[in-house]
């Protein structure tokens, strides 16, 4: 593999890792607060649809992003009402959210656009444009570092940079603020948090809503930046890969970044090369697609370090009466 191909592969990994990263961090907030969320996929999908539709009808991609975030937050709120207020089963609620998104996006897009579950192509200001970082053009000629800066680091949409900035932000919020301490505590031992006079319900709702915002950005990125419009089922299991990445990273922000980059790299390798020769054996592309899931099972099995979820995860909190 030559240098240019390598740069191309890494560049495409970054693009493909971005939605995973956003969704993974979204899940991180929710699960750290004790609310399991297997509805990441559905929230990405609903946001991808509303972002693309609103960006198309207003011609303004920022309005699209806003619509996507709002729609994803509405879904997050449904999940919150079911799992926090009515103490329902969080996994079942997540399953329902995923189906609701698959159904609603196609039904409504058929009704609005009659394009068989798609939105019209987005053009110009309806999409996030790629940003050229300062001096990228001038430095392009510099050997080795020039192409890395020009082709790999520069030239992504603003959402990619935002996603990578959210990683340190999340770390800081979780480990260096009072809010983060309470958020983590509420996922480990809600009764203790309650005793300290902090509302468990409010903490969990805020976590679920943050999760909605981040999934919303992930969906908007899919339909207005990575591609130019919405296609049915365009989230294509990314919500579940993000969930896998979350477990793989053991619910920690920096590791989440690395897990998502790894899974993005696998995805990019699978789409760039049809056949991969490794040590003389040709690896089928389907194996590359299944690898994130296989790795997650291995991690879950505890053969390579143990992934221990937040202790109160999945359990509704009942105040003693």
């Amino acid at each position, binding site marked *: 593999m030559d240098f240019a191909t390598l740069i191309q592969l890494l560049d495409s990994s970054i693009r493909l890792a971005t939605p995973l990263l956003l969704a993974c961090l979204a899940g991180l907030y929710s699960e750290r607060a004790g609310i399991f969320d297997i509805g990441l996929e559905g929230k990405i999908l609903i946001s991808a649809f509303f972002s693309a539709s609103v960006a198309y009808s207003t011609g303004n991609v920022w309005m699209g992003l806003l619509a996507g975030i709002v729609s994803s937050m509405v879904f997050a709120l449904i999940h919150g009402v079911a799992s926090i207020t009515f103490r329902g089963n969080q996994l*079942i609620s997540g399953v329902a959210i995923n189906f609701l998104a698959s159904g609603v996006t196609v039904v409504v897009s058929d*009704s609005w656009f009659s394009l068989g579950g798609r939105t019209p192509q987005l053009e110009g200001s309806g999409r996030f444009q790629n940003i050229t970082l300062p001096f990228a053009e001038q430095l392009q000629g510099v050997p080795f570092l020039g192409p890395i800066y020009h082709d790999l680091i520069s030239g992504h949409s603003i959402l990619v940079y935002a996603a990578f900035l959210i990683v340190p932000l999340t770390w800081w919020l979780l480990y260096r603020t009072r809010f983060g301490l309470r958020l983590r505590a509420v996922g480990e031992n809600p009764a203790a948090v309650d005793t300290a006079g902090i509302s468990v319900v409010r903490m969990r709702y805020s976590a679920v809503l943050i999760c909605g915002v981040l999934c919303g950005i992930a969906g908007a990125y899919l339909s207005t930046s990575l591609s130019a419009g919405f296609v049915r089922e365009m989230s294509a299991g990314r919500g579940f890969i993000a969930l896998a990445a979350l477990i793989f990273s053991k619910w920690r922000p920096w590791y989440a970044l690395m897990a998502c980059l790894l899974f993005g790299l696998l995805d990019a390798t699978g789409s760039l090369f049809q056949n991969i020769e490794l040590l003389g054996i040709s690896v089928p592309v389907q194996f590359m697609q299944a690898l994130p899931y296989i790795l997650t099972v291995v991690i879950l099995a505890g053969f390579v370090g143990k992934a221990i979820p937040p202790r109160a995860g999945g359990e509704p909190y009942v105040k003693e009466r």
Partner: protein
Amino acid sequence: MDKMPKWADIALIPFINLVLALVVSGLVVLYIGESPWEAMSVMVRGSIGSAYGWGYTLYYATNFIFTGLAVAVAFHARMFNIGGEGQAAIGGLGVAIVCLSVPWPHWTIALLAATAGAAAFGAAWAAIPAYLQAKRGSHIVITTIMFNFIASALLVYLLVNVFRVPGSMAPETARFADPTHLPNAYDMAPWLGFSRSTPLNVSFLVALAACVGVWLLIWRTRLGYEIRAYGHSQTAAVYAGINPLRIIMISMLISGGLSGLLAINSVMGEAERLVIDPVQGAGFVGIAVALMGRSHPVGVFLAALLFGMLYQGGAELEFEMPSVSREMLLVIQALVIMFTGALDNMVRMPVERIFLRLRKGG
């Protein structure tokens, strides 16, 4: 201690949940600009108004009975088997291998062998998540989700590289030989008015037998008692000498086997070859079916029938009301899962209060 009579728990609350789901779905139809009443009547007429409709309704119901029972058995041991989709797909692989490898003389023997193959492959696909849950404490929901994706990748690989008919582009196996053709409703009961191509086949009877079998297993055997005890209270069950590893493994193997059985209906009975997605979401419908049916075989049967009507009715709806797409049934399905599964307390708490007040008054 019971806050309300049993009939309210097993009939009234699911009914209210269903009505709520249908009302919200009706609002979506209204938003699109169609009449919910008309949509509803098209769906009912399309699904049970003719022998043609019944043929499809019961065919879908057969799939959903298998996956619904699968989820229900796991629920009894308080496990959430979300991997029906993958287990059924691998069950399809078992059916294909059985049907393609031996020149079966008659469909009855082929059906027995295929049933064993489907159940064995489905159970095998559930075995690894079950073992990891029992031995290593890996969350079964997450592992079964992951195994769904692994199954679909595996199936694509095998269909493209191993089973594909040479010279053909389609990623599917060869058509199964004629003697493995399962009699459909037309072959068995032509006087009922089924058409020659109806997908409803003898697997429906296998599904009914599975309902009876699960009922016997859960409520009439020692093993069933142990499964229920374990699901009710794990510590009490362990104290009573029940081995958790054994219960988790056995209930998940049964669950996976039941999911795998779907393949005798859709792969052997209908398609007569293994295609790239033989399950088509039925594994997930099983979750809704088990929730609505309160994990009881009779409830599962009725809920599967209801979802069969929804699926066939949804297909008819697309013909008669082109502005309502087929995915409307995904919306209905999602709302049923949401209201019966996750928002159950929203209905249960006020109903309980009403019954308490009635009891005080009376």
